[in-house]
């Protein structure tokens, strides 16, 4: 994929949030997306047409992360109110609230079967919640982290979490091991490559790092952007050929995965901060900023 194919065109701007947007996630097939922000709402959009579909309100504080199951039936969200909300997508009602985190919850993810929620919190713990039972107690608490856990990612068998303590920890359920990759820099966001072999880690030293998951080796570093104080997402393109990351100056960077060169970078937002999010099958992605809008980029 050459640079020209990169999603650079702003297709739509999703307006509606009344505050900073903190996360934007595609659904499983990439047709819809969910955004959440400081206005305590979660909004469901059709980004391709720029239509606001639904608003989910129940959070008492800012919503920091949202995730939707692969069958699009359930939502989970988390935020500053230290709870994880488990929503029914269609009715917009809260099915369950999981309380247990001692402080803000930074990230939340469903597992593959949408049976378990895994959340990562500022209370230095990762907690797994059972969606199937009525229990609101965590079924597993992982508290080996030494600082706020910023990002969590799940595979079929593993829980990966990146923490400000500079580690990316992989909890392999199959073998009951915790593998800790110490990066030495606060980890902001982790993002798995599409083939599942690599892990893109956004560190607070303005560097994205690509780790080999099996060995823990550092494969590549991507620099050029600014990421020093904000939680910013990063991701790989669908083909794993490029790395996308946002910068605090409002621009979006594309790096070549292999030689770490900045393929392209452009100003996407005028405001301070830009974050970027997934690129599911339409090879399009979002950027969103502390401004209210979310822009949807497509090739």
């Amino acid at each position, binding site marked *: 994929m050459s640079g020209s194919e990169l999603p650079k065109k702003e297709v739509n701007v999703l307006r509606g949030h009344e505050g900073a947007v903190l996360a934007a996630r595609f659904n499983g097939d990439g047709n819809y997306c969910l955004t959440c922000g400081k206005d305590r709402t979660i909004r469901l959009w059709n980004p391709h047409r720029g239509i606001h579909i639904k608003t989910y309100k129940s959070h008492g504080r800012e919503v920091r992360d949202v995730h939707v199951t692969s069958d699009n039936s359930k939502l989970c969200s988390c935020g500053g109110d230290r709870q994880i909300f488990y929503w029914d997508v269609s009715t917009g009602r809260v099915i369950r609230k999981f309380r247990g985190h001692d402080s803000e919850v930074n990230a939340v993810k469903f597992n593959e079967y949408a049976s378990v929620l895994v959340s990562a919190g500022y209370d230095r713990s990762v907690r797994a919640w059972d969606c199937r039972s009525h229990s609101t107690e965590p079924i597993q608490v992982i508290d080996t982290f*030494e600082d706020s856990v910023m990002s969590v990612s799940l595979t079929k068998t593993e829980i990966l979490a990146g923490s400000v303590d500079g*580690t990316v920890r992989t909890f392999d359920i199959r073998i009951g091991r915790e*593998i800790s990759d110490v990066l*030495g820099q606060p980890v902001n966001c982790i993002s798995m490559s599409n083939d599942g072999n690599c892990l893109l880690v956004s560190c607070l030293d303005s560097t994205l790092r690509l780790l080999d998951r099996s060995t823990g080796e550092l494969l590549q570093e991507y620099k050029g952007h600014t990421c020093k104080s904000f939680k910013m997402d990063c991701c790989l393109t669908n083909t794993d050929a490029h790395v996308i990351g946002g910068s605090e100056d409002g621009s979006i960077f594309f790096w070549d995965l292999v030689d770490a060169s900045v393929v392209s970078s452009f100003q996407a937002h005028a405001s301070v901060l830009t974050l970027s999010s997934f690129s599911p099958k339409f090879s399009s992605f979002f950027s969103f900023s502390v401004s209210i809008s979310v822009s949807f980029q497509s090739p």
Partner: protein
Amino acid sequence: MDADDDDFVFYGTPIEREEEMTGRKKKAVAEAAGHLRSLPPWKQEVTDEEGRRRFHGAFTGGFSAGYYNSVGSKEGWTPQTFTSSRKNRAEMKQQSILNFLDDDERAEMEGNSLRTSLQFDTFGFTATELARKEAEKEQQKRPSAIPGPVPDEIVLPATDSIGVKLLLKMGWRHGHSIKDSRTNSLYDARREARKAFLALSTDDARALHAQSEPVKSHLESVSEQSAEDDAYASQSTPVYVLNPKQDLHGLGYDPFKQAPEFRGNGLFHFAEKKRLRVSGNREPGNRKSNLNKDNLFSFKSGKAAPGFGIGALEELDAEDEDIYASGLDFEETYVQEVEEPSGMSRDSKQKLVKNEQGVLPGFKNASNSDYQLERFNPPVIPVDFKPYHKFCAPLEIESKLASPAPPEVPPPDDSNLRVLIEGIATLVARCGTLFEDLSREKNKANPLFCFLNGGNGHDYYTRKLWEERQKHNGHRKLQVDMKLIPNVQKMTAESRGKILGERPLERSSTNSGSSAAPADVIHLQFNLSDTFTIPASLGDFPRVAKPFRDDPAKQERFELFLKEKYQGGLRSTDSGGASNMSESARARERLDFEAAAETIAKGELNKETEPHSSQQFREISATANMHFTPGGLEQVKIPEGEELIMKKIYPKREEFQWRPSPILCKRFDIMDPYMGKPPPLPRVRGRIDSLIFTPDFVRPTKAEETVAANKNPLPVSQSEPQEISEEMTSREIEIELKNTNVERPVDLYKLCTFTEAIFSDDSDDERENSSLNEVEDPQKKTEVANTTLNRLIAGDFLESLGKELGLEVPPDLSYSLNKASTPPFQNETETIRTSKGDVNNFSFDEKSSSTHKAVIGTFRGQETAYGKLSHPEITREAASDGSELASGNKESSGSKTATGHSENNSGKVKLEKIAPEDKKTKPYSRWSRSSTESSEDERRRHSRRHRSHSSSIPLEDERSRKHSRRHQSGSCNSDSDYSDEHGSRSKGGKKGSSRRKSSREHSKHHKHGSKDYPSKSSRHDTRREHSEAKKESRKSRDRGREPVSSKAGSYKNNR
């Protein structure tokens, strides 16, 4: 949804219905009266002291309603004033409010009411009043013989006022001045003067004044009121009262302001007159009359009326007495009115004169005050005091020296005896008389030693002893003098610092160019922490054996290192090695040095006779090491080449045990890897702050222990009961299986990663890469092993027990078994074994001296804490066991692996070099460890005792406890903890150097892979299938092994 009900959020508090508050709830509230305070105010209920409710609300009876709560009867309010009985005439009852009050209210009222108390009736007024009233009442009740009111004067206060009582108790008598009769030194003088004055006095006061001018002046200089004598004491207590306003002018209005001459001209003014009166009072004649009248019946006799018509120069006499004066006896006091200076009055004139001298109005300068600053002399220093401290030893010596010298005696003829005597004398002089007693006791029967008991040669012995003592003391005294005198004489901050091993901070110049200000700050901090090294005085500089003889440069660096280590002071930045060395090499070398230094120090210490002190010393040095020499050195450098180092260090991979909860596994649709197994040992927590080169000894260990303590007890207690029942059959097999079991997750994982690694490579490079992987294997696996081994502690423990019991575990069996089963798995255990073997082996195999040192390097810091109890321990163990020494060895070997295998982190650095040989030699080497090795273990264990934590106890059996391995697992933890850090060090170094290239290649390959995505994905799929298949087979195998393994696990736990 049914679950939705509990998802409602309630805000605020629901309204409580009144009926809910009745009955039961009310009772509960009453019962919870004690907790009422915690209730919000509107829920609190006011009750009286008997628990009755006080307020009922306007609609439920009002305040204090009902029979039980209030006055009245059961029927309600009954009229009390009317009684219908004829006989009992209704008497007029005086009703007061008290009749209508409850007890508690009454008490409250009384508490609030203001009353006078006799206690505070200072002047007796109230008492007088009371007495008077009482008398009046009495008089009213029964008419007395004498009609009319009782004269006031007759009724006296029944009691003296408290003030009077106090004064009486203090020796005051009625009619005397309150002042102390001998208050000041001037008193006598004044008295004398007054006597003279009285003697000289005539009727003419003026003449008197003129005559006795000096006396007068003297008197007045003292003070006016002090001119009083005891005779006038009853009037003498001075009360300063402000001039009461007694004229009809407005406040502050001075009618004489415009015409002061009138004031001075004898115009009538109350104040003036009063002043005159006062001065007149002072005149002897008048005074006498006053005195005469001063009795009970002449209260008002001395009072001059503030009337008109008395001139300034007129004398006061009886007719001027103020018959209208109030009860207040101002006349008895000296009212000094300075506000209105009068030119005519003598007193005021004098006062004016005084005022001009800058004294407060109304005050006079005391001519001489009785207040003198008392000065105390400093304590007298004895002449023979010498301002330095003498230690008791020299004192003793001196006292002994003082003892008179026994007479010179010719040596006995027997040269043997002479030599003996001299020898003994020397020894006794050196070691004290205790030795003498000892030898006397010992050689009682020996005729050769009879000189000790006063036999043959005793005189010579005493003489010799004296001489020896003399000599010895002289020597010591010299030493002491050398040490003491200079210290005392010029003990400055620097010299003290030198003694303490400090050195002034200085910025190292190496850093100054490149690093910015913050870096400098960090540097300084590190310098600070590094400033404190072991003081030189703690131990002698160890005689340097030359451990690096083969490498002169290295030896040189080592000596430098030693010097810095033992002689204190700042470490220069490049002390660790030559500047051309790589970071990792330097770090490794530093480790080596540390290790060598420790061994040397240990060897040195072993020579010492007294185990206790040496152990103490070691502890001291160990702690000193811990506290004062964190290797700040390498950290200092991080700012310099941060990039480079970071790349070398990070990412660093560590592996830990982690136990997913069964339900999580279930939800993830994964088989629980720990199904049916006891919970794993608490894992060693990763520490981000233990950046590679900083052995931060103190804090992490602590955290570790607490973590372990938190995690440990519960799971163990859970699993214990069910497994106690299990028999320990076929122990050997179980032991082996247990090993494999614990490792199984690892090797499963490894298997996956291996296959992944192999299959993800491009076909061209496949072969090369696989080999590459294999090369990397040991390293990778040792990393894995590090963590696995933590879990294995218990296993080894078990093994050791098995061996203790005489059940030999044939090492070959496991080896071959493992080998046969699964190659990667076998590799896994292999590496673990080898690492263990390494650690155990190196000190005995003469493989290479350098590796030896390196391994010892892992003991750095651990060995600092070595005790010397090892040997007794071992022998005792062997004896109590009833088995041969070998069993003791074995046991300790087991424990060695328990403690030691956590060390193989560091051993692993060497592992790559010697792994091949090791694999061969391992089975033998593992068991062929000499007793000294095990003694090291013992020692370590002992020295670790204090670090142990209670959670370790449930893990062991009494047997092990009996062998004083009480704290083994605790020490294991700390050991592994410690060595983890070392491992990370060496790992970092290792990675930095050797793995660079391979990782590069690897990433290249990966990039290739990701570029041609479709093909790769297919390959991925196949690979996955492959691994899945393997997994499946694995699973089945595991399942097959499950029962046994669980048994093994339980066995482990049982212990």
